[in-house]
């Protein structure tokens, strides 16, 4: 499955539903689809639209879903300049706990089985394994 999501934060929810509702039955447990996949994909799309495409209505974010025998892989790629994922502060530290932003990648890392980035830093790959 491939889709281009308009660079509009209001489209994130619909794009997430489209992906989640089109996964073949049995790919992942219903609970993992309901919560882990939906939350992680919303995070990835929100980050790509806000920071990658700058909410520019003339740009879009590409999503590709790969079904493997034992896992689902979701690639989210924007056309931005990328960012350094190693420089993000820990949102659970006391000095950060009342910050409004900065939890996205932390949340993703806890909800999926594997997270990978492309070299440029403008693409993320989320892997959710069946049976996990």
């Amino acid at each position, binding site marked *: 499955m491939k889709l281009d999501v308009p660079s509009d934060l209001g489209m994130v929810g619909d794009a997430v539903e489209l992906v989640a509702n089109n996964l073949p039955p049995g790919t992942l447990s219903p609970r993992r689809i309901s*919560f882990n996949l939906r939350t992680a994909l919303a995070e990835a799309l929100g980050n790509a639209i806000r920071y990658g495409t700058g909410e520019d209505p003339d740009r879009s974010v590409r999503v590709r879903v790969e079904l493997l025998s034992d896992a689902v892989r979701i690639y989210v790629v924007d056309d931005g300049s990328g960012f350094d994922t190693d420089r993000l502060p820990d949102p659970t530290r006391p000095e950060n706990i009342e910050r409004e932003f900065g939890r*996205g990648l932390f949340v993703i890392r806890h909800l999926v089985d594997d997270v990978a980035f492309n070299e440029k830093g403008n693409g993320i790959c989320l892997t959710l394994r069946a049976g996990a």
Partner: protein
Amino acid sequence: MRFTLKKDKSGVVIVGVEGQLIVGNRQELKQKVLDALEEGSRKFVIDFSKTGYIDSSGLGVLVSLSKKIREQGGELRLAGLNADLQTLFELTKLDTLFAITRTAEEALAAF
């Protein structure tokens, strides 16, 4: 997705979140609560019993609202988190920032 606001007889505003609280609708929730704060309400319960998922933008707006309500001498309580959402609050340590109860009724009784 839908937000509902109602006031109980003691003046506590109960906000229902149906569906999800994410980057695409966080501003709508924020504005509704801030409007109620502006109109004089000080005690709030956000009921997540009909909520499927919350992303980090949703968590962020709760942090922001909590601060604004506290600055006005009020209090925000959260209720009705399912097991996955409860885990999300625990892993982000936001369970230490909010008063969280099992049901909205329990939250109301605690004011």
